[in-house]
C-alpha cells in the first residue's frame, strides 16, 4: 500500500481535479465561442439561462444527457459506440502532460511533446470510426475527408514541433518553457512557424475555415450525422477539448507557457496558472474570431495549402533553424 497505493491515489485525485477544472472551464469556453461568434454577427447569442446566458452550456449538457441515444439499425454497434468514447478519452488523456505552472503537471515525462503529438494524431480514429460505423453516406464521406485532412496537417505540425525542439534542446514540455525563460519566447524567432502552427491547429481540430469533415452545406454534419444525445455530446466535448489542447500547445511552444510577459513587479505577482490560462484564452479568442470571419476552404485548396505551402515552408524552416543553431553555436 505504501509503495504503490498512496502515489496511485494521489495521481487519481490529481486527474479527477484536472478533469473537473477542464470540463467546467470548457463549458464557459464553449459559451464564449458562441458569444464571440454572435457578437461578430451583431447577434446576442445565448442569453436566457442564467445571467448573460452563463449557464447555457450546463443546460445543453443536461438536455443531451437526458435524450434517448439512437443507434441506426444498420450501424456497426460496437464501433459506433466506441468512436465517441475514443474521441473523448484521447482528448482527456492528452492533458496529463500539460504543465499549467512550474511543477503543476501530472506526468512530467521526458517525451512530453511527442506524447501530445501522438495523442492528437490518434484523434482521427474517433472521427473515421464514427463515419464508417454509421453505415450511411454523409458520415462516411465526412470521415474520409477528415482522415485525409488530419494526416496532411499533422506533417506540418510535426515539423513545426521539430523546430521548437531544436531550439529548446529538450522534449520535455516544462523544459521547453524553461528554455524560453532563459532566452526569448519562441514566437519571436519562429514567427512564420507560429502562424503555420496556428493554421494547422485549425485544420487538425476541424475548425472553420477547415471544417470540411462536417461541412453542413454539403454533408449535413459529416461524421456526426447519425449521433444523438450522449454519444454526440462526447464527440462535441472531445472536439472542444482538442481545440483547447491546441491552444495550450501553442502557448507552451511559442508563448512561454506559464511565464509572465515581463519579469517585473506587477506582472510576476500573478501566479503562473493565471498567465497560462490567460494565454490559452487569448489563443482561443483568435480561434473563435477565425470561425466568425473566414469562409470555408474548398477541399483541393485545403490540400494544396497543407502539402504545397506549409510542408515546404516548415521543412525549410527546420533546415534554417538547424543551420543557424549550428553556425552560431546556439544549440543547447
Amino acid at each position: 500500500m505504501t509503495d504503490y497505493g498512496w502515489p496511485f491515489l494521489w495521481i487519481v485525485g490529481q486527474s479527477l481535479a484536472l478533469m473537473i477544472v477542464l470540463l467546467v472551464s470548457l463549458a464557459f469556453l464553449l459559451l464564449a465561442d458562441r458569444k464571440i461568434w454572435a457578437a461578430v454577427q451583431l447577434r446576442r447569442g445565448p442569453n436566457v439561462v442564467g445571467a448573460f446566458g452563463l449557464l447555457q452550456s450546463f443546460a445543453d449538457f443536461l438536455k443531451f444527457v437526458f435524450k434517448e441515444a439512437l443507434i441506426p439499425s444498420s450501424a456497426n454497434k460496437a464501433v459506433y459506440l466506441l468512436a465517441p468514447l475514443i474521441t473523448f478519452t484521447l482528448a482527456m488523456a492528452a492533458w496529463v502532460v500539460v504543465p499549467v505552472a512550474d511543477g503543476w503537471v501530472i506526468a512530467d515525462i521526458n517525451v512530453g511533446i511527442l506524447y501530445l503529438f501522438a495523442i492528437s494524431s490518434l484523434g482521427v480514429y474517433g472521427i473515421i470510426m464514427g463515419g464508417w460505423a454509421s453505415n450511411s453516406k454523409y458520415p462516411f464521406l465526412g470521415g474520409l475527408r477528415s482522415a485525409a485532412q488530419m494526416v496532411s496537417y499533422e506533417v506540418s505540425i510535426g515539423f513545426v514541433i521539430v523546430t521548437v525542439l531544436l531550439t529548446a534542446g529538450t522534449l520535455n514540455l516544462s523544459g521547453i518553457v524553461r528554455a524560453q525563460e532563459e532566452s526569448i519566447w519562441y514566437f519571436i524567432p519562429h514567427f512564420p512557424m507560429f502562424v503555420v502552427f496556428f493554421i494547422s491547429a485549425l485544420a487538425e481540430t476541424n475548425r472553420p475555415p477547415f471544417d470540411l469533415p462536417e461541412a453542413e452545406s454539403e454533408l449535413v454534419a459529416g461524421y456526426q450525422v447519425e449521433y444523438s444525445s450522449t454519444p454526440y455530446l462526447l464527440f462535441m466535448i472531445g472536439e472542444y477539448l482538442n481545440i483547447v489542447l491546441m491552444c495550450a500547445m501553442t502557448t507552451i511552444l511559442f508563448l512561454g507557457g506559464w511565464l509572465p510577459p515581463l519579469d517585473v513587479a506587477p506582472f510576476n505577482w500573478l501566479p503562473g496558472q493565471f498567465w497560462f490560462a490567460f494565454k490559452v484564452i487569448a489563443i482561443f479568442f483568435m480561434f473563435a474570431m477565425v470561425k466568425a470571419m473566414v469562409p470555408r476552404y474548398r477541399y483541393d485548396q485545403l490540400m494544396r495549402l497543407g502539402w504545397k505551402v506549409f510542408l515546404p515552408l516548415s521543412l525549410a524552416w527546420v533546415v534554417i533553424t538547424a543551420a543557424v543553431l549550428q553556425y552560431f553555436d546556439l544549440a543547447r
Partner: protein
Amino acid sequence: MVLQALAFYFFAGIVIASAVMVISARNPVHSVLFLILAFFNSAGLFVLQGAELLAMTLVIVYVGAVAVLFLFVVMMLDINFTELRQGFRDNLHWGIAVGLLLIVELVIFLASWQFSGAIEETVVAKQPPVESGITNAEALGQIIYTKYVYFFQAAGIVLLIAMIGAIVLTLRQREGVKKQNIGAQVNRSVKESVELVDIKPGQGL
C-alpha cells in the same frame, strides 16, 4: 516489480489476443482496428522497457499515419464476404501444404541456430541508456545521426528514390479536367481580363 510484471502480462496478453483477432476477424475493418490495438499495446511494452521515445514513435508513425491509411483503403474496398468465403474450401489443402512447409523450414532453421558468445556482452549485459544519465532520445540520436550517419543518409536516399518512383507511377495528366492554377490567378491583371464596354440601349454588343 509485481506491478511491472502485471502490466507486462496485461499489455502482452492484449497484443497477442488482438494479433489473433487481426487474422481471424471476418470484417477487414475490424482487422485493421485490432491491428491498431496491437500497435498501441506494443507501445505500452516499449514504455515498460524504458524506451519511451520508441513507444511514441511507434504510436505516431504506425498508429497515427500508416494505420490511418490502411483503414482508409480497407474502408473503401467493396468486398463481398460470401464470395470471399466460397474459394476458401477449394484452396484449403494448398494453404495447409504451404503452411506446413513454412513450419518445417522454420524448425530446421531455428534448430541449427547458435548464439555467439558475444551476445552476452552486447545485448544481455548492456544497460539501458536511461540509467547512464542521458535520455534515450539523446542516445538514439547519437547512434543514428552521429555514429551511423552515412547509413542514415543512404536509407534516406533509397526512400527518396522510392517516393519519386511512386509519384512517377501515379502521375498522369488527364485531358479536360478543370484545375485551379493559383499562379495564373495571381498574375492576372485588370487590363487583360476586364474590358469596359459602353452599350447603348436597344443594341447588343
